[in-house]
């Protein structure tokens, strides 16, 4: 067993883990943060995407012990007040999800994108999200959601982390 | 799956025949093979196949099905079972030796492989390349270690 110390959504975590424990399992089953989903454990579908030190990472291709000393953000950390942030609201308003299973991965990938670039072209959005597979939406609603969120962020009326109560 | 390969050893055909049908002598040159016991006709050991990070360990056995010295044709049947996991390898290997000169023998190997389990479960096929590489290693070893030591 190894001890890992990290922060998850700003909260400090110290846990003993078996070295082979995947970060996805650690978040879901040790910390109870089941919003991060597991779709393949082969590094393809992107459902398990989380932010490690601000960058998108496949949590199924990362060992929990590799995350020692990092700051992790998961979907649960997007709207801490229990409402929806700009991006989440854009997904609701633009039908960016259906079954909702791949959604957390897309939200994290889009969060990282918008963090770097608040005016991405459709092509850039599609490219950036191409590592996340959705079987329900045909991506149309997802791309539109990210565009809508970017527009709002550019307007300057809201910031990415700003939450809105339902 | 059938894999064909041809290589040349620097030895007259009779000598090459003697060496190539002597499992104990060639065993050290079979990449990843560890001969552990011989019972009657059957040679048993561990075959460790290493392809980059992928390592498959098989408990293996090898027998001669046919040894036709006049035609210089030898047929071996090998079988292996993954030591962890459920996969198997079954191989029928037909080798035909032909004199290619006074001190040179051409060896033609045709292996019919039946592989099951995890390693067989991929669309990208590298088995051909891998076996070609293994045979290269085998021949190289044969030439430097076995043949070189042969008077």
């Amino acid at each position, binding site marked *: 067993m190894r001890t890992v110390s990290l922060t998850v959504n700003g909260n400090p975590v110290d846990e003993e883990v078996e070295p082979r424990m995947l970060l996805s399992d650690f978040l*879901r089953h040790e910390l109870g*943060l*089941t*919003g*991060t*989903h*597991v*779709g*393949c*454990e*082969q590094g*393809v*579908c992107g*459902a398990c995407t989380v932010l490690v030190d601000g960058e998108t990472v496949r949590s199924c291709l990362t060992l929990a012990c590799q995350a020692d000393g990092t700051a992790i953000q*998961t*979907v649960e950390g997007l*709207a801490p007040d*229990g409402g*929806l942030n700009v991006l*989440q609201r854009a997904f*609701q*308003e633009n*039908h960016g*999800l*259906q*079954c*909702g*299973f*791949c*959604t*957390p991965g897309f939200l994290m990938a889009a969060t990282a994108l918008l963090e770097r670039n608040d005016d991405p072209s*459709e092509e850039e*959005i*599609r*490219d950036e*999200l*191409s*590592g996340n*597979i*959705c*079987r*329900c*939406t*045909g*991506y*149309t*609603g997802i791309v539109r959601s990210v565009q809508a969120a970017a527009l709002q962020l550019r307007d300057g009326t809201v910031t990415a982390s700003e939450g809105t109560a*339902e | *799956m059938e894999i064909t390969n041809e290589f040349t050893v620097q030895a007259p055909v009779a000598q090459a025949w003697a060496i190539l049908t002597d499992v104990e002598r060639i065993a050290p040159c079979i990449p990843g093979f560890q001969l552990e016991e011989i019972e009657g006709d059957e040679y048993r050991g561990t075959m460790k196949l290493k392809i980059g990070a992928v390592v498959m360990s098989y408990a293996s056995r090898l027998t001669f099905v046919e040894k036709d010295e006049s035609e210089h044709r030898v047929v071996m049947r090998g079988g292996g079972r993954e030591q962890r*996991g*459920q996969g*198997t390898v079954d191989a029928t290997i037909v080798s035909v030796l032909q004199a290619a000169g006074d001190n040179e023998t051409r060896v033609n190997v045709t292996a019919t492989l*039946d*592989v*099951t*389990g*995890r390693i067989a*479960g*991929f*669309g990208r096929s590298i088995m051909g390349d891998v076996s070609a590489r293994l045979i290269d290693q085998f021949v190289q070893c044969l030439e430097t270690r076995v043949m070189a030591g042969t008077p």
Partner: protein
Amino acid sequence: MTTSLPIDHELHPAGAQYVGAKINRVEDPRFLRGEGRFVDDISLPGMLHAAFLRSPVAHANITSIDTSRAAALPGVTAVFTGQDLEAEGIQPIVSRAFLPGMGDNLREPLPTKKVRYVGEAVAVVVADSRYIAEDACELIEVEYERLPAVIDPEGALDPGAALLHEDLPANLIGRKSESHGDPERAFAEADHVFSHRFVHGRVAGVPIECRGVIAEYDRGRGGFLIYSSTQIPHLTRSVAAECFGLAESDLQVIAPDVGGGFGIKAHPYIEEVVIPFAARRIGRPVKWIEDRYEHLASAVHAKELVMDLELAVAADGTFLGMRGRYNANAGAYGCFPQTGMVDAMCAATLLPSLYKVDHVSYEILAVYTNKCMTGTYRGVGWGAGHTAREVLIDDAARALGRDPLELRLQNCIPSEPYRSVVGMNYDGGSYQESMEQARDALDYDALRERQAKLREEGRYIGVGFSPFVEPAGFGSKAAAAVGQKHQVTYDWGSVTLEGDGTVTVRMGFHSHGQGHETTFAQVAADQLGVRMEDVRIKYGDTEGVPYSTGTFASRSGVIGSGLIMRAGGDVRDKLLRLAAHLMEVSPADIELAGGKAFVRGAPDTARTIKEVAQYAYFGPGSRQLEGDMALTSTRSYDPPESYSNGTIAVVVEVDPETGKVTIERTVAIEDCGVMLNPTIVEGQVAGAVAQGIGGALYEEFVYDDDGNFLSGTLLDYLLASSMEVGPIEVHHIETPSPVTDGGIKGMGEAGTLAAPAAVLNAVADALSPFGVTFTSTPITASLIRDAVAAKREGEQ
């Protein structure tokens, strides 16, 4: 007509404001916050974890299984094999015969004698963690006596072929022929006959959430609680109850949030029997979460068909007749309840589609092979048959020098209700109009000009059309129309006005992306005049909701809305009486809207529906009303046949030297009758189209000749991403169905059904200077380039 409803029981009663509006989904916030509750998110006290050992070989007798080393591994609680289940009398899952000469197919939850495909479960390990369970699986020693693998669907019927099921006389699942009109004569008299053999690739829905089961046994009551990621909790309960010899209500099956289904989760599976068995034996809850390899290898596949099609055409382009032979490579077992015949049967019965053709015959057969069993996947065999037909029509148009769209328009059925020669009762639609609308949306003439211009520059763009009819709102009559008379459907739903004025709808239709919590709330709110936020849609728990065959085959929208209109209408009548009583007027004078009841024309008289409900539940005055005043009603609905229609058009650019296809544009014209929520319709269309594009270009389950499964990862079974799919435009036409409640037609599968033909036709159109045509899916880059090269070589 089967459905005559009182005037009040309509989709848009007075005051209705929700149905037809683009309303954001009410279920979204929980998913967006990561608060959905999928099977793997559920943890029960004392729960253990299971992993299955699966067969590495396609066909073999099991000669021995030694589980001792696995059982001895620290952390392992138990290992079970087929022998353990057999010893306790667990019954097989039965896929029942429904045609003369067909045999029942019995599938043991775990096999006791032989394995029949790579990936078939052979044993289950239960341990403290999934990690340990997988460690233990590696320690189980199974001796197999290999048997020849049967892979090819035509070869499966050879007299010498190895037999998969010893209790059946051959590998034939079933066979059926039908002839309508006089096809022999039509073909004899035709000026042109076009034919091809089209092989449709083996594909599946591949939801991003794999399947999963948690089971807990209540020893005291002798019953099970089973969580399963399924589209069909009630059927799952029926099958599991039968396997265990229990009463249905001894089992509670809960399908929590389900991460996509697409038909794949519309079958009962052996894991839904084995995991409860393990939980009962051990006395602790057991969880099994299917991993991606297991899903790809062992959840149902679909649509692998060898189709021989012939089209008889008169000199002027009139379609005279169609003939088809459909052989389904159905895999190792029969799925429940449709059997392995489902794809071939669906493909064949929709052969004439929206074409006016009077002479049609077909032969349907399906065979057992050593591949994963097939079942339903969005669009089912309809899609495979559609692709084969529409590609042949484009080939015919090219050969005749006709525009492919014009040739289709010439042969298209009229917009009025129409009985096809094979006996399908189309309920009217926009068959021609949808083609014309697709043509206009593309600016077809300009597109052809651009195509000619680009060709001069050595660039190849092409356009493909795929007009469709989609059997939808799948009830018993629709099942019969596609040859599945045995697949009786049965669905109930209830509407209840609670004491606080909120409305609860309970129905068996599970929602796994369809947005039922929104659309059905729209319907219910309009029925009772309440605000949408005061409606709750309950589903997924067999203890909590009435019976339903389940959500599949585009049936929930039609049937669910019908149920709510019927049951809601009953409750509305009582609500009107209560309000009238409370307000001392006649029920006929009351209007319900926006959560209020008021006297028509006098909004200031309004009482809130909450007040009326409280009057019903707690107001002594309401007891003066006579008759049954339960503010709840449970109704069933089995709709007549109804068919959506539309056209999908795709524009592609193809690089003939690398075979790379870029989808420039997809236009989908969708006519699903009266729409509940256009936003959700558009989402369903786009999602289905994306899966269709995937099936056309990328997706295929591949087996080698020995039956090895070569598609065990998502790097092998390739799913299209946002880069491959490209933009999808959806346009609506709304032709109300004259036969269903509210004029609603089911929808959701057309994109998957029809997009592949549009893609294949577009690629062939782009490459028409080379004379390339296609007779299989998927058309991979390699296949396309090699086809171009073969034509080029042929010319030299």
